[in-house]
């Protein structure tokens, strides 16, 4: 007799535990307000990334097309996987002195691991992280970017 009672108890406890689980899913079924899906490409306009989001490395330019990069190459040394290459040239400044300046700051997005060492170690804060995250392209060569804009100059007062 005791075994039968135990058997029935087992069944009832089992069914009860199943019902508890069903209560959870049932509750969510009837509360569509809790849906968390984001309709991604449609909400592009309202989508705000976090301010520190590491989307890609960029070189901010001001409105006069000036950047802060002196071409020192510290970012290149710090990059663990060689995604940055700084090509510098010698220029003559207005007062006749020869000076090293940046020719091309090449950034290979396809190799970047977003470790933030370049941005953190830049002595003149020339690099920053951009919020852009839709990087998909059909040609891998398009992922090699030149960060300094054509014709851009070193910002005054940055050494």
């Amino acid at each position, binding site marked *: 007799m005791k075994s039968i009672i135990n058997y029935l108890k087992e069944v009832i406890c089992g069914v009860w*535990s199943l019902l508890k*689980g069903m209560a*959870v899913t049932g509750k969510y079924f009837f509360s569509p307000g809790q849906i968390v899906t984001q309709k991604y490409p449609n909400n592009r306009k309202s989508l705000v990334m976090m301010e520190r989001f590491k989307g890609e490395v960029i070189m901010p330019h001001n409105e006069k097309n000036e950047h802060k990069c002196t071409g020192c190459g510290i970012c290149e040394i710090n990059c663990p996987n060689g995604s940055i290459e700084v090509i510098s040239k010698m220029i003559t400044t207005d007062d006749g002195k020869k000076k090293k300046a940046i020719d091309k700051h090449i950034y290979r997005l396809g190799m970047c691991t977003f470790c933030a060492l370049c941005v953190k170690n830049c002595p003149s804060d020339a690099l920053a992280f951009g919020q852009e995250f839709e990087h998909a392209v059909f040609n891998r060569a398009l992922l090699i970017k030149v960060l300094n804009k054509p014709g851009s100059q070193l910002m005054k007062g940055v050494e």
Partner: protein
Amino acid sequence: MEEEVKQTGINEQEEYIINMGPQHPSTHGVLRLVLSLKGEVVKNVEPHLGYIHRGIEKMCESITYQQIIHLTDRMDYLSAHINNEAVCLNVEKALEVEIPDRIKIIRTIMSELTRIQSHQLFWASFGMDLGGLTCFFYGLRDREKVLDIFEETCGSRMIVSYNCPGGLMYDIHPNFQKRVKEFLKYFRKKLPEYDQLLTGNVIFRERTVGIGKLSLEDAISYGVTGPSGRASGFSCDVRKHEPYSAYDRVRFNEILFTEGDTFHRYFARIQEMKESMNIIDQLIDNIPEGPYAVKMKPVIKLPEGEYFQRVETARGELGVYIISDGNKNPVRVKFRSPNFVNLGVLNHIARDFKIADLVAIGGSLDMIIPDIDR
């Protein structure tokens, strides 16, 4: 070089051999298990690794200590922050740098958040392994809240790279404390649902209780650490035994069970989430003011010698062993990754159970394949 390929029992005639993986839904990545079956019963499991081997240890030999950090993210990507911390602690210990309290406490909070999100994903994928797909979405839904906190402070969601030798990359975001408190409040409400949906469920219990038992002796001998080891009663919590960062100033329990079966490996993780929330509770209001990083030399050279540091990741004990010859690059870096060692026990505990149990056992070991292969 001549190879000694030994013939194992796997190729005997009467056995039914199945390749589980490298592309299989329940191996969580590119793990390949060669099973020999007798009917549904698993007679032998032989893991074949290397599908995602990237040679991180070799790469570490040619880069600087700051640069190693971002590689450790890619080992166990679910405890990325804790992996970072292991290398940083080791380097700081070698250089004998005193770390301010603020950094220690922030690191501890971030580590525990990492642990929570890792266990959330474990819960999600374990439910999915057992066939309850809904768990997967609930787990990911709640994990998203932690990832948002990470994104706000570290800039990335999973592979955070937030530590650097001497401190942190940036200061915490002004919203950090508020967000963490919101999350704790939110998750305390959601955790009972996990229990209702899975822990108490009679089907789940039938599937897990008594399956894949690992005794204490075997757990120690096989070196199974983390929640999987603690479910067998192996007191292996590095946070308790060798407190690092701020673990010596918080009160928390080491979750220990003696059963050592699949259910208790699962349950240990559920309990650990609660403990982690308690730890964060104790620290979140007590972050002292101060710098977020100690000024370090731009080129770090460790003094000649050998350094070993253990930390407790979400899956077990991660050991970082650095041999330095005084240069800016290490001579040898070894990561004693918890998953790699835990995988060794799979054949021992999954033998003589059914395929469905193997999936459950494998799921309960919470394997992350990039951590096994490195």
